[in-house]
């Protein structure tokens, strides 16, 4: 990523990143006018940032030497991106994805509670209204377990793309 592009985009990213998922919800509902799609938009807008920032950081941090190796082998820009830059930045990118999936899982539950109709978030709220605390506690545990599984899945992916210098 060029440093000009980075400087141009960074303020927007820094302003959008700390916005709570709940704050997006009304605007999303107003613009999209579909609760399901709004929920997906909110999940997307909240979880994209760590992935985006880490990707930019990872790509910017690719060692000059490796890029020079690609250049002296006359690799095309696309080939350089796939054979040198992507593997070199993969560990950082996957770390970003791992953080993002964690945030996405948090936001899914919150969005489902607001939008209602389906999902574990809606279920928790519904059971609260039924005053069925056993189901609420069970759901909370399930949310935790699924989150852990998602995280360890990305942990495996991280190990697969890791390399030692």
């Amino acid at each position: 990523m060029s440093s000009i592009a980075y400087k141009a985009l960074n303020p927007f990213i820094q302003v959008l990143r700390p916005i709570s998922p709940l704050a997006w919800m009304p605007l999303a509902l107003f613009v999209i006018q579909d609760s399901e799609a709004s929920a997906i938009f909110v999940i997307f807008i909240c979880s994209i940032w760590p992935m985006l920032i880490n990707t930019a950081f990872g790509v910017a941090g690719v060692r000059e030497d490796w890029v020079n190796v690609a250049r002296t082998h006359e690799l095309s820009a696309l080939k350089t991106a796939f054979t040198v830059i992507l593997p070199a930045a993969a560990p950082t990118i996957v770390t970003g994805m791992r953080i993002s999936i964690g945030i996405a899982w948090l936001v899914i539950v919150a969005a489902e509670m607001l939008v209602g109709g389906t999902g574990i978030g809606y279920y928790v709220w519904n059971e609260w209204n039924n005053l069925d605390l056993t189901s609420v506690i069970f759901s909370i545990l399930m949310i935790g377990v699924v989150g852990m599984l998602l995280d360890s899945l990305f942990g495996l992916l991280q190990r697969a793309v890791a390399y030692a210098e």
Partner: protein
Amino acid sequence: MGSSFLSVERLTQRYSDGKGGEFTVFENASFGIYKGEFVCILGHSGCGKSTIMNILAGLAEPTAGVVKMDGIAVSGPSLDRGVVFQNYSLLPWLSALKNVTFGVAARFPDWTKSQVIEHSTEFLAKVGLTGDAIHRKPSQLSGGMRQRVSIARAFANEPKLLLLDEPFGALDALTRGTIQDELTKVWSGTDQTVFMITHDIDEAILLADRIQLMTNGPLARVAESVEITIPRPRDRTAIVEHPNYYAIRNHLVQFLGNRSAKLAGRDTAGETQSPETVRIETTEAADDHDEGPHLRAVQA
């Protein structure tokens, strides 16, 4: 220098010094390299050796001047010019073999996969890497082995010009000796032209046909081109007995010790700076440390 395979013509490199002024590394530097020659460049740190190397590789652009290979001006990196970097520059997520096949596949896109692997394995074997070692990642290899892989990658591409940037700088003396021998072995079987940066005088004498001596920077220049008048094949223990060895070595030490500083910093006044050819030939015993009378300086 008209018949040179590679000719460097009036190369100038200036950097901004950050205060609105300019800092000239070298100016109007010109020299040539013949086909199949092994040329070493010696000089103190900061004289612009690596800058010249990067320009030859096409990784950097000079402020002025051209580099011509086979009469065609060089622009940008090319597979015709292979580079061995000081810090090996192997891709750490690929095995040693994959690091070589990666280059070979780029060089010969028409080859089948098995052809590429066969060719790569052959070159790895030439530098002494066989069996299980070629399937290991660079992090699981010693420094010497990594540099071997790097040399194999460069030679396997069969470039017209091979550029070596202090390839043995980070290695211990014993490993360095072995790899120097392997380098000579791989090189002598080809008609490849090699241009190598080094800090080691003995290494330069052992490997080179000609040594380019650079004065100190700023305003450095390639001041002398010393021919190594020791016949090949050279053996590291035998060449020290050769009468020319110490004469050449003394000349180089004197240059780096005294004259490199004295000759530095001269304004070129727009003149082309070509190195003076020096040929040291003596048949007398090497115990004579004053090489003066045997030295003939010939203007190129």
